[in-house]
């Protein structure tokens, strides 16, 4: 980990985070920095606390001790209006999409825009159509309810909602879980393309090796309650740790194919 990155280039800074659930220690003095413009994958065994760490980062939970700085500030130490502004600077794609089931696709994407209370309806309409076009959905699908669309579409609508405010940081929890290989491939291309056009920083959790190999630029390995590696995928080869060695073997062939 290099410590000489200028402060404004660190989007997310996790310092000495400890988390415990009862007797189960999940994170023990965990440190991680996410640099602006990177696509970072967070990997580790099932149940090692990846999603918990993600929830700390987006401010849903608070670690027992330690600091989570997002854009240089601690979300939990801010006053309400500033906190809300700060939360508009990142978008989250939940594993199941977490679309509001009572609202149509259009209203789901328009929701964060309407909450700003700055834009009028014609602008909101145009922006929603723009986001739908970004994730390659048909404008005719806008009136459907989340229950009426397929799993792949739910993910894309959820992505469109996460992107509605054109955030700096995009947090994805298992972005390709539940998608067929074709769709997940398209989804990865979509995220990469959006990253380029919108200048995003992406942080994601995945178990899918194909997603990891084709999307991640950097990888942070969570093992033994802290980050044991934070480097590019190819640099993993040089790390001597049983989990990393195992892990790298399973992605090596995929890296070579790229």
């Amino acid at each position, binding site marked *: 980990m290099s410590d000489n990155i200028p402060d404004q280039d660190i989007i997310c800074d996790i310092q000495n985070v400890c988390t415990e659930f009862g007797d189960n220690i999940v994170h023990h003095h965990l440190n991680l920095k996410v640099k602006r413009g990177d696509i970072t994958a967070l990997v580790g065994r099932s149940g090692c606390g990846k999603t918990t760490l993600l929830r700390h980062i987006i401010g849903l939970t608070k670690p027992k001790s330690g600091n989570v700085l997002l854009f240089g500030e601690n979300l939990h130490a801010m006053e309400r209006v500033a906190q809300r502004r700060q939360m508009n*600077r990142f978008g989250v794609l939940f594993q199941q999409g977490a679309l509001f089931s009572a609202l149509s696709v259009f209203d789901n994407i328009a929701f964060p825009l309407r909450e700003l209370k700055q*834009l009028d309806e*014609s602008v909101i309409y*145009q922006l929603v159509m*723009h986001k739908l076009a970004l994730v390659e959905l048909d404008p005719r699908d806008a009136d459907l309810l989340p*229950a009426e669309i397929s799993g792949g579409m739910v993910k894309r609508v959820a992505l469109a909602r996460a992107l509605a405010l054109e955030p*700096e940081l995009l947090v994805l929890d298992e972005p390709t879980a539940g998608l067929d290989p074709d769709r997940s491939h398209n989804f990865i291309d979509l995220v990469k393309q959006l990253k380029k056009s919108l200048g995003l920083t992406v942080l994601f959790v995945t178990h899918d090796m194909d997603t990891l190999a084709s999307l991640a630029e950097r990888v942070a390995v969570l093992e033994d309650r802290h980050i044991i590696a934070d480097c590019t995928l190819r640099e993993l080869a040089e790390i001597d740790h049983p989990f990393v060695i195992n892990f790298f073997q399973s992605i090596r062939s995929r890296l070579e194919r790229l």
Partner: protein
Amino acid sequence: MTAASFHVTQDGQGRRHVQLLGQWSLRAPANDFGKLKKSLHPFFVDTFTKWDLLEVEQLDAAGASTLLSGWGNKLDSNVSLKPEHTELFNTLMSLTRPPTRKTELDWLSPFNTLGEGVLHLWQHFTKFIHLLILLLLEIAYLFSRPQDFPWREFSANVYKSGVNALPVTALLGFMIGVVMGYLMSKQLHTFGADVYIVNILGLSIIRELGPVLMAVLIAGRSGSAMTAQIGVMRVTDEIDALTTMGISRILRVVLPKVLGLTFVAPLLVLWTSGWTLAGGAFASNLELGISYHFFFNYLPLAVQPINLTLSLIKGLMFGFVVALVACHFGLRIKPNTESLSNSTTSSVVTAISGVILVNAGFAILTRGIGV
């Protein structure tokens, strides 16, 4: 980060130049596009205004769309753009326009709404009858295969809707008993008819109030829970999972709820009526000095025992109605939160209305008995 701002100059011919500066994006926390649009309004309406976007640091879709809506959704020669921004504007302009919805006053709409309402009601009614018949068929099936009876679910329902309801029904029953006893004692005392407090409380509570109070409480407590539970089971595909295992959803989900509540409701009626009478006895003891011993000794003489049978039959019917209505609405829930809340509300309202309707019918049928 610099917030979005603009700078206005005027050239020799009186034309205004608006130069946009800073970050025209939602990322800059200080931006308020509502205010910006308002302050730019005088320049938007002036078609001769020149727009200079060359100094803009960052432009996102929200900023571009706000400007575009001010310019009447077109770019003309008055606007000078950075090449990388042109593409964004072109994309935005190529998007579909909102459909222009005409809102015409339709004189037939009240009739349409009424007709739809009637059809909707009719649909509910037929589906309800359908469910009832399916339930009866399952019961008939159980006679041929008694080992399939879902005892575990049945007893779980008896426990959840019966045993767990004991404290709340006792407390509310007792309090209502106290209030009624107190008011009636006052009235009867003015006529010197103190003793009749037993008759009046006994008859009204055992015959009417106990069963109805119990039904209202379990409709709110167990009925809503049943509807929500079945609804969530539908949303999470649990009902389909049951069906694919070859297990009838009526047999496993609906039947234990209906039979459980039907079984436990008469017992709850006894319990509620008992506590309401206790409340009444307590109030009449305080107000009129009638001893508990006298109150409960005189009760069987004042109220014919047949009333107790009637109240138990009512309990059976009310439990059946509440559970069946709850299951009916639960099975109609669509997989979204709005439908879940609507159906739960409808379930409770319909169950209580059904109970009162059944009670009225029953009162007419049994008007000659026990009074």
